């Protein structure tokens, strides 16, 4: 099954002594030919502005664009199609929610609960909003002070659910932001349980699904989340496109963040009324080709089957966890077992800097990430400056894991 999948990716067609072992999939995945061709075909034969043209070409483009919204709705099992908002990526999706909530829902002194394993995309918007937003509720023009709290992790690299419950009870946060899967530890969080607990405590919940969306079925109704964010480029689709899912009744109340064409119902010299969902949040000409590419990426995922992907990646995780034990001095961050764990392996090797490891692996044709992976708070809590991260997905193989391990053993010897 895997060679057949791998063959669909043009980037892996180049053969040589050191073929590309691409292990940086948590940053961005490679693109199958169907995604590249769908975008190419759109530009060659279907390109037109969406939503406004009355000619056939524009109607075709609009239909293709809106068809992907239906596809995404089915993909995440949303209740209504207008609950699917196209954004530029998970970062923008999170920013829409943070800006909208802090403008129209939150008051001075309200608390926000995040976790220690959040990506900067979840932390930084809240830090900015906590200091700067002006409230339309209490009309204060002073700087709004929201308080941010962080749920700690246990020694295994999982969210401490006991501490989460205590923080909910103690601070009664208005909002909980949590990642579905950690982009560093690979931990899959029990988001369904956390959402239920948060709702009982009166908080809205945003799930960052950037690292989970391409690795198993995500069902927003089963999860019960209020908002969910993900990016196209981490699920075999193009860059520049992402999705914000939000419950209809919440999105209707949430103010827009981007103002301009298309998101309006009526504009006069004195006043503008906004368009209904989803247009309200899609001001300006959208990235139509990227949306088409996202549709092709979803079709690619569905052609394999999300459950098959989860099963294969689970076996790859088990293999990698065993194999990495053969590298002397290697310390793995995150859970050592396959239970609720994605194929993301961040590690340090005693006495060797992460960037040296990444440069030396690159010479063997192995692409990994080195640094703090946009999770500086997590690295600080682990008393680390940087780590190396190998993140796998559906086209990776046990053979590539072997190449990684053997290269790491050689590097370790070189530095002794």
């Amino acid at each position: 099954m895997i060679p057949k999948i791998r063959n669909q990716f043009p980037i892996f067609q180049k053969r040589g002594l050191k073929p590309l072992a691409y292990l940086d999939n948590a940053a961005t995945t490679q693109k199958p030919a169907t995604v590249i061709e769908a975008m190419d075909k759109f530009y060659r034969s279907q390109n037109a502005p969406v939503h406004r043209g009355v000619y056939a070409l524009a109607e075709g483009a609009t239909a293709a664009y809106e068809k992907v919204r239906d596809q995404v709705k089915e993909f995440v099992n949303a209740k209504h199609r207008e609950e699917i908002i196209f954004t530029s990526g998970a970062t923008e999706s999170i920013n829409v929610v943070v800006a909208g909530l802090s403008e129209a829902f939150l008051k001075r002194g309200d608390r926000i609960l995040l976790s220690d394993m959040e990506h900067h995309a979840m932390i930084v918007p809240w830090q900015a909003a906590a200091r700067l937003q002006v409230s339309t509720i209490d009309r204060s023009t002073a700087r709004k002070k929201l308080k941010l709290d962080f749920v700690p992790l246990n020694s295994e690299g999982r969210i401490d659910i006991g501490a989460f419950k205590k923080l909910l009870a103690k601070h009664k946060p208005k909002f909980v932001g949590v990642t579905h899967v950690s982009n560093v530890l690979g931990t899959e969080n029990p988001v369904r349980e956390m959402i239920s607990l948060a709702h009982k405590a009166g908080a809205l919940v945003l799930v960052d699904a950037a690292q989970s969306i391409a690795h198993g079925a995500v069902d927003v109704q089963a999860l019960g989340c209020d908002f969910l964010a993900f990016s196209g480029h981490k699920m075999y689709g193009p860059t520049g496109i992402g999705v914000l899912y939000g419950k209809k009744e919440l999105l209707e109340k949430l103010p827009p963040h981007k103002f301009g064409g298309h998101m309006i119902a009526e504009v006069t010299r004195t006043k503008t009324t906004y368009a209904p969902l989803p247009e309200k949040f899609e001001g300006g000409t959208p990235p139509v080709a990227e949306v088409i590419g996202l549709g092709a990426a979803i079709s690619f995922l569905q052609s394999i089957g999300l459950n098959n992907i989860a099963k294969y990646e689970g076996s790859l995780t088990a293999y990698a966890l065993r194999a990495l034990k053969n590298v002397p001095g290697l310390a793995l961050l995150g859970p050592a077992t396959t239970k609720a764990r994605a194929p993301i392996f961040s590690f340090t090797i005693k006495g060797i800097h992460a960037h040296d490891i990444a440069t030396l692996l690159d010479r063997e044709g192995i692409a990994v990430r080195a640094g703090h992976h946009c999770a500086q708070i997590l690295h600080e809590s682990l008393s680390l400056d940087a780590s190396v991260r190998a993140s796998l997905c559906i086209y990776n193989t046990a053979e590539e894991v072997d190449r990684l391990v053997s290269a790491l053993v050689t590097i370790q010897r070189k530095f002794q």
Partner: protein
Amino acid sequence: MDNNDIYREEIMEHYRNPQNFGVMKNPTYEAEAVNPLCGDKIRLQLKVNKKGVVEKVRFSGSGCALSVASSSQFTEWMVGKTVKKLKSTGPDQIQELMRAKIGPARLPCMLLSLYALQKAVAGE
């Protein structure tokens, strides 16, 4: 192995046993530089005599093999040079000492001690 390899044995030796590594009291000049890529920090100290000639150099901090080995070689080179000479020193000097071609992503690692030097003698 390639003579211009950045991880050749000669450079690894500087990494394992860096020269001029440590901290001195009462330096004439000192500065810190941070590598924005990874947050590695280096502290560079210089002792200069009345004639403006560098007598002693120390560097400290943690870093990757490239930053440590280049700091080791570069600080060895600094001893005996005038401050005037150091002020006009650029990236080419470290490239020459390291005899290594390096891509843009890792260049800041190799130039970390130069950044610290430029800060240290900037006011002069």
